[in-house]
């Protein structure tokens, strides 16, 4: 966060579904190593915004620029499909709420982790497998499961495998959509702990979508509150949660704190 130039610049991003607003006129910068949480009620536009920023969904207006490894800031819309897809599977990661959406359920855990390496040209089976085993350890999956398919894994293990699969290429930016969403509370806590460690160890920049303010509190440096597709309040996480300025945010925070 001490770096002087933003990693990602989002300007005036809008997406509509027919006449309905998905997200409207959203702008923000993201700095290297920064974790930004996008919070809000269900239907407020968090997923739409995340997908537009990560170019999984086409925005109808606005601009997303990313600082490439060579230091140049490039508009995603100026890149060809090939370059954009290459970026998405090397320098970016995407962790889905449902691990089945981000994993190949029928191939082994080792191949799931190794796929990105093979996609960028790794051609040594022994090295790929070693790296996969190493990553299973880092996400606390027993390494004797390396040849088992994720079908045989619990929900928490699947989510940890999905994280390892994304991090194996040392991305600088990871998108996460409700990564702890479908999990039991105790499993959630362990995953959050693991995520927090990995994010700070690797210096990852993260855009984290969550409806759970406790998750935002634990993981993020900064947050944006969405309502009806717009960002209605943004700021440092502690400031927003301890001293919300917008009445809607106050309501959100107080209702969460009552739970």
């Amino acid at each position: 966060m001490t770096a002087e130039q933003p990693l990602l610049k989002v300007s005036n991003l809008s997406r509509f579904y027919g006449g309905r607003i998905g997200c409207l006129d959203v702008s923000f910068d993201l700095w290297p190593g920064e974790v930004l949480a996008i919070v809000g009620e269900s239907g407020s536009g968090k997923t739409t915004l995340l997908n537009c920023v990560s170019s999984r969904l086409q925005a109808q207006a606005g601009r997303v620029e990313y600082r490439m490894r060579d230091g140049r800031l490039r508009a995603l819309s100026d890149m060809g499909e090939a370059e954009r897809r290459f970026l998405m599977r090397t320098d970016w990661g995407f962790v889905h709420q449902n691990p089945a959406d981000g994993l190949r359920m029928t191939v082994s855990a080792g191949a799931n982790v190794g796929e990105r390496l093979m996609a960028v040209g790794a051609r040594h089976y022994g090295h790929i497998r070693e790296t996969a085993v190493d990553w299973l350890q880092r996400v606390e999956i027993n390494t004797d499961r390396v040849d088992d398919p994720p079908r045989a894994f619990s929900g928490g293990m699947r989510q940890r495998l999905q994280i390892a699969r994304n991090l194996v290429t040392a991305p600088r930016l990871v998108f996460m959509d409700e990564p702890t969403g479908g999990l039991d509370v105790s499993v959630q806590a362990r995953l959050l702990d693991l995520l927090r460690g990995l994010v700070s160890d690797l210096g990852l920049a993260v855009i984290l979508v969550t409806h759970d303010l406790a998750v935002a509190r634990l993981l993020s440096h900064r947050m944006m509150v969405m309502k009806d597709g717009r960002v209605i309040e943004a700021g440092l996480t502690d400031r927003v949660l301890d001293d919300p300025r917008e009445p809607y945010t106050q309501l959100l925070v107080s209702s969460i704190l009552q739970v």
Partner: protein
Amino acid sequence: MSAIEGIARTNFAYLDEQTKRMIRRAILKAIAIPGYQVPFASREMPMPYGWGTGGVQVTAAIIGPEDRLKVIDQGADDTTNAVSIRAFFEKVANVAVTTHTRDATIIQTRHRIPEAPLSEGQVLVYQVPIPEPLRFLEPRETETRMMHALEEYGLMHVKLYEDIARNGHIATTYAYPVQVAGRYVMDPSPIPKFDNPKMDRSPALQLFGAGREKRIYAVPPFTEVKSLDFEDHPFTIQRFDKPCALCGSTHSYLDEVVLDDRGGRMFVCSDTDFCEERREAGHVGPLGVPA
């Protein structure tokens, strides 16, 4: 195939000229982009899909009165499938047929490449059941097309990785994926991987027809065809510890033949023409009799 009787007086090589031109355009495009699957409007043929309607349409589109056709199935000229297709073209195109690899101008095949080296001017037509090598892990056609377009072939190695993780070695022995001219990854049809090296820089033109899937692809003569592998698990072909029981060949692909119901068996060349030629030339295997 009695349906042939009724169609004997239709157009040369069964298909109408319009259809042949459409298929030839697909073939030319396929040759221009080696390994790329060109869609074509596959026609109904008077035989079921499993019988190689893709290969038959390709052959019908390229065959002329001067051609000499050989048809093999699993290496043999005398199996039902091969006999029927050969009879079909004798009927509808009145072309000369042969079982000798060297004498043929067009060889239509299912599951093998002949052992005798092919030469310039020959065309090998493969019958293809499933043309898409990425299909097994990525069922979405839109996505596999994108992967080919962008040369995203990591998935092919995922399959080989799984093979090694499960079996300790690459256990794929048929339809072993190849990369053509350093660009498109291609399914060579269900030939044994033993035959893969024969595709590499072959002087013959290789055409692949998938009838049900409506795709044609090609390897032009003298084109590099590389079998995918890992540095520490390099591609190797099958080896047989015994020679052909009939002709004694030690460098051909062998089939196991059951001799009796007491468990007796022998290994013989799957390429029947190759085996016969060797025996005619005086070679004899352990169970063979001099020709």
